[in-house]
């Protein structure tokens, strides 16, 4: 997609939807943030109106913004403790199921991100919908608009616990039958919660708490290097701040 095409798409979107959509353009990609209540109306218009014709839902996925921008290693000041600076973080590789952080307060943690494609107009659009309540994130299902979102919504429900209201068959899809928890949440340990083995005495498969220890080899670092700052300024991509 060329630059002019993207700009005209952003203009057409703001002309048609006004304040309903919060539009940002980064590089050649257009992102529109929409409130959960408006999603179905916007989606239907995007699919049917000649200016958009987003006939295909290419992708839908959940995102958990807990811990966005947090690091495990302070790079601004020098401390005398060396590498141990890196082991105090709370990233998902560092805790077990029993020690997982329970009180996690970050407003608007969960979002469903939809990628649309218009074959007729050869353009793409990203829609982001936040679930308002973090203890029970609910987003309307777009299965009525694009049938193909069915499994993608099941996946986002399975991995993130986002509830898609109006989905015909919201079951787990990727995890095991009887799985507990939503494994891609940032407060779900990387090592998981249970492990499976065959017990020759009981003559059946048994589930046990994981025996491996959590560990992280490379700490999570954000460096404000000169060239990264420059890249940041050039990208002018401040979608998370506004």
């Amino acid at each position: 997609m060329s630059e002019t095409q993207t700009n005209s798409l952003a203009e057409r979107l703001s002309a048609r939807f006004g304040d309903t959509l919060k539009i940002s353009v980064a590089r050649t990609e257009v992102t529109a943030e929409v409130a959960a209540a408006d999603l179905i109306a916007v989606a239907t218009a995007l699919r049917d109106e000649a200016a958009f014709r987003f006939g295909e839902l290419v992708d839908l996925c959940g995102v958990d913004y807990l811990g966005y921008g947090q690091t495990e290693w302070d790079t601004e000041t020098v401390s005398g403790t060396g590498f141990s600076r890196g082991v105090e973080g709370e990233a998902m590789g560092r805790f077990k199921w029993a020690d997982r952080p329970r009180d996690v307060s970050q407003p608007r943690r969960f979002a469903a991100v939809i990628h649309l494609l218009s074959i007729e107009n050869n353009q793409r659009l990203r829609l982001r919908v936040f679930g308002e309540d973090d203890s029970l994130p609910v987003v309307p299902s777009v299965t009525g608009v694009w049938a193909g979102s069915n499994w993608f919504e099941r996946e986002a429900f399975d991995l993130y616990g986002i509830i898609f209201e109006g989905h015909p068959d919201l079951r787990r899809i990727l995890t095991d039958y009887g799985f507990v928890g939503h494994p891609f949440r940032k407060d779900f340990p990387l090592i998981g919660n249970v492990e499976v083995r065959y017990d020759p005495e009981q003559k059946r498969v048994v589930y046990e708490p994981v025996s491996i220890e959590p560990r992280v080899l490379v700490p999570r670092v954000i460096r404000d290097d000169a060239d990264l700052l420059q890249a940041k300024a050039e990208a002018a991509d401040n979608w998370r701040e506004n």
Partner: protein
Amino acid sequence: MQEIRNYTMNFGPQHPAAHGVLRLVLEMDGETIVRADPHVGLLHRGTEKLAEAKPFNQSIGYMDRLDYVSMMCNEHAYVRAIETLLGIEAPERAQYIRTMFDEITRILNHLMWIGSNALDLGAMAVFLYAFREREELMDVYEAVSGARMHATYYRPGGVYRDLPGKMSQYRESPWHKGNDLKRLNAWREGSMLDFLEAFTADFPSKVDEYEELLTNNRIWKQRTVGIGVISPELAQQWGMTGAMIRGSGVAWDLRKKQPYAKYAEMDFDIPVGVNGDCYDRYLVRVEEMRQSNRIIQQCIAWLRANPGPVMVENFKVAPPRREAMKEDMEALIHHFKLFTEGYGVPAGETYCAVEAPKGEFGCYLVSDGANKPFRVHLRAPGFAHLSSIDPIVRGHMLADVVAMIGTYDLVFGEVDR
């Protein structure tokens, strides 16, 4: 009169036609499908979550293991997403190498597909023919990366190394000797490009051989013509891409419509089907092999004429040369930082897609500026395709479900991720 009721049947996960680990719960009325409920996830490894816990470069190898018959195309989507956020572009030679290897991968994938699909529908020989050529291309993979399948060859900023000047040869053994050995090594005297050129000159005649076995084969046509018809509207509704949507007559190909790497410079055609049935998708894929062969030939010609760097000279992203590292302190520091910490990617988000052999393989990457991705989501074509199986196989016979699974070209590494 005896009362006949619907019954439920379990198909897979241990079934040769289930292509790995598909479990399909079928509700049957006699031999007719009333409802199909696929259970996937038996191969779920949490690739996306694992990628969030590692520096960017360490996850490239995971991409190979998603769709493990089109390895480099998966890498391409991931690497391109990182490059987009970093704002860097691979050197021209690296772009040509990527284009060439994407097409080699497409042929590898389609050979696997044609062999296993024919096997599912009762034709044994095609599998043996297809694997003969797959072996040659695997050797090309091995020549550039050292691995026959999981190459980890593409890197943000280029490819790991330039094409080798020598092709590995068969050595004499009790199984390969004399004229047999000479035949095996006939193409392998020169460089990798010489070998590939000989292969591409020969490959169209090999495709003719597969077609000889299938295209006018009465049994093959009985099993595929008119089976699993997908209308263009249905294909769009279910998010289909690749050969699945082209088989229904929609000329949609990212290589033409949203070109990446060097596809804009390539001369090739997009085959489309007419009826949208399994047979049309077979014809589309066979023709795609011929077109891929053309693209490879064009890449070979360019790569022969234009030597140059295959990796960006940006040591914040790509490691310096090993010789430099031994002598230059700055190079050593860059090397150390890159391999202990990795590189930070500017905050932002991007969705980068490539035309993988199975359809659109996309990578949605969210970075918060750290040395590890904040969120990676991989859009697997097979996942979207398989979700449509219920409306498509309803009313078909049980044996047609096998034809349909075959035509989806499923690999559970990518469906389950």
